């Protein structure tokens, strides 16, 4: 704190702390904590809520019957006996009304109950979709890595500088084009009457329902997020001293051992970043399943989250779903850091 004050003085230090504080607490930590808190409770009807509702219904019925009886008495000629019966009925009805009011008061103030029921609900209803989303995202990540590593290595170490610059520019364009457009291009290709089925038709095949089967989601996802793997790996391989590769070669290392013993170990931070980004984007993608299935295939986990919030409006369960997704991503990050032995400081660059 003293070092801050020395370079900025009191007032400016206060402004800096205020700005950073609103960001950290108001935008990052606050919302996340509230979301987690929300996922851990639900509004519960008081003790035996269903029985109370049933009792209230029964009491209303009794009042109805009493009112009918009372009407019968009202039709009789006036007498003291009639007045006494009427008063008796009114008294009974009033008593019942009071009882209902008491019961309704307990019924309409549900209590906030902390429990993990929201998660249990997810486990019983949508565990399969959750698992499918995670596995498919791992698949996308693996494919992206195996396709992109040779690419990154080629650009960083094999191409002449001028050509490398050109290739990078050419890669930047599809990388920077809006995600939605890249997805839509594949929707046009894999549509039931799209280009892929037209080609299949030329060879006499039946049209394949790519979108309806969920294949489209996977294909478009690989396409949409693959370039998030190229750039981080390229950046780390580029910092590797070429002499190290040449030296390994001179000492008789084959292509395989050059890569496993020299290039890959050096590229670890880049690989970690690429894998984390690709996995996170895939598991958390809403656009790809939204556009590529039109609601016909099994939902992606993110779509369930959307439905919980904006269609069935059960925010507590929705928060539990959202936190489960976040938890998977955090676990994946720690796994990658552990596996590749990199620190967070190496990752975010």
């Amino acid at each position, binding site marked *: 704190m003293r070092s801050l004050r020395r370079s900025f003085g009191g007032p400016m230090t206060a402004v800096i702390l205020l700005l950073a504080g609103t960001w950290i607490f108001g*935008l990052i930590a606050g919302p996340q904590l509230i979301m987690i808190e929300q996922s851990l409770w639900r509004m519960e009807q008081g003790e035996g809520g269903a029985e109370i509702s049933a009792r209230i219904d029964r009491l209303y019925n009794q009042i109805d019957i009493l009112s009918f009886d009372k009407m019968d008495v009202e039709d009789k000629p006036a007498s003291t006996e009639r007045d006494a019966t009427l008063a008796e009925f009114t008294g009974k009805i009033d008593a019942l009304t009071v009882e209902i009011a008491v019961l309704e008061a307990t019924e309409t103030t549900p209590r906030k109950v902390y429990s993990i029921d929201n998660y249990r609900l997810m486990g019983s209803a949508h565990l399969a979709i959750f698992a499918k989303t995670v596995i498919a995202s791992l698949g996308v990540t693996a494919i992206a890595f195996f396709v992109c590593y040779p*690419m990154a290595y080629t650009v960083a*170490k094999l191409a002449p500088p001028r050509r490398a610059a050109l290739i990078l520019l050419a890669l930047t364009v599809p990388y920077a084009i809006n995600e939605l457009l890249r997805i839509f291009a594949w929707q046009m290709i894999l549509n039931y009457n799209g280009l892929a089925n037209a080609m299949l038709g030329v060879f006499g095949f039946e049209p394949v329902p790519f979108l309806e089967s969920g294949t489209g989601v996977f294909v478009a996802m690989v396409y949409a997020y693959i370039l998030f793997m190229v750039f981080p790996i390229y950046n780390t391989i580029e910092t590797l001293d070429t002499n190290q590769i040449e030296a390994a070669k001179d000492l008789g290392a084959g292509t395989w051992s050059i890569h496993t013993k020299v290039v890959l170990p050096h590229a670890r931070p880049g690989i970690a970043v690429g894998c984390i980004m690709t996995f996170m984007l895939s598991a958390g993608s809403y656009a790809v399943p939204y556009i590529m299935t039109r609601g016909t295939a099994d939902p992606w986990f993110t779509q369930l989250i959307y439905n919980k919030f904006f269609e069935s409006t059960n925010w507590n369960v929705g928060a539990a779903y959202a936190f489960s997704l976040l938890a998977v991503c955090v676990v994946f990050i720690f796994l990658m850091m552990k596996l590749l032995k990199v620190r967070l400081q190496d990752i975010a660059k």
Partner: protein
Amino acid sequence: MSAQAQVSIDRKSRLVLRIYMGIFFFYMFFPLVIMVAAGFNDYAQPSVTVWRGFTLKWFGELARDERMWSGLVNSLIIAVCVIAIALPQGLAGAFLVTRLQSRYTGVLYAIMVSPLLTPGIILGISTVIFWRNIGVSGGLFTAILAQSTFVASYAMLMFMARLQRQDMSLEEAALDLGATHAQAFHQITIPFLKPTIVTASVIAFLQSFENYNTTIFSIGGQHTLVTEIGSRMRFGLSPTINVIGILFILLTVFFATLYAVFRERERRREAQP
């Protein structure tokens, strides 16, 4: 760094790599070509399999689309507000991490980069939950805050990279010679950060403008240009979407080239002794 010699390889491997690159670039660009082509097709649906001749009428159709224009206005409002919020926050965060000599710096840093490693939909939905508890429902306001959460992280990283190269002695000399803190900040730190402020603004603008995942979960009943495009794409009813695609691609190529030229010039300037 880039002036390093390339690794030499034999001709056969070179050929294999060339083919690999060719396939990769075909894979990257072919879908985009298809999408562009359909924008010029005189057919009521986005398609290249049914070709009815060349037309520019979808451009006119797009220009008359009210909802797209209102979405564009919303996108611009959001982007400007996000820049105004996220840049100062990111800069403040960068000052904390670079100048605060404390053992909590690591934790601070981890928290500040965490939005980049969090799925966008989580940032969106948690912001909406947070503000609903105070009685504010989803709309442009929550979308601005949700986007600022991660845009500030980008800004923080960029400012941090710049601040780490700052020569502190200049600032200290100014203070020793009697400059006030405000003067030193205004005349030394700000001019030093100026290039980063410009690039960070551009990046923040693009990140905000192009964002879909965070926005769709935080914007409530409102829409931006990109969320509107998303909901139209789902059923792909009109080639106006392809026209938007063409415009986006043109802009992207323009900016990417500009960026590459800019970076090349920067690098040459740094290479000079």
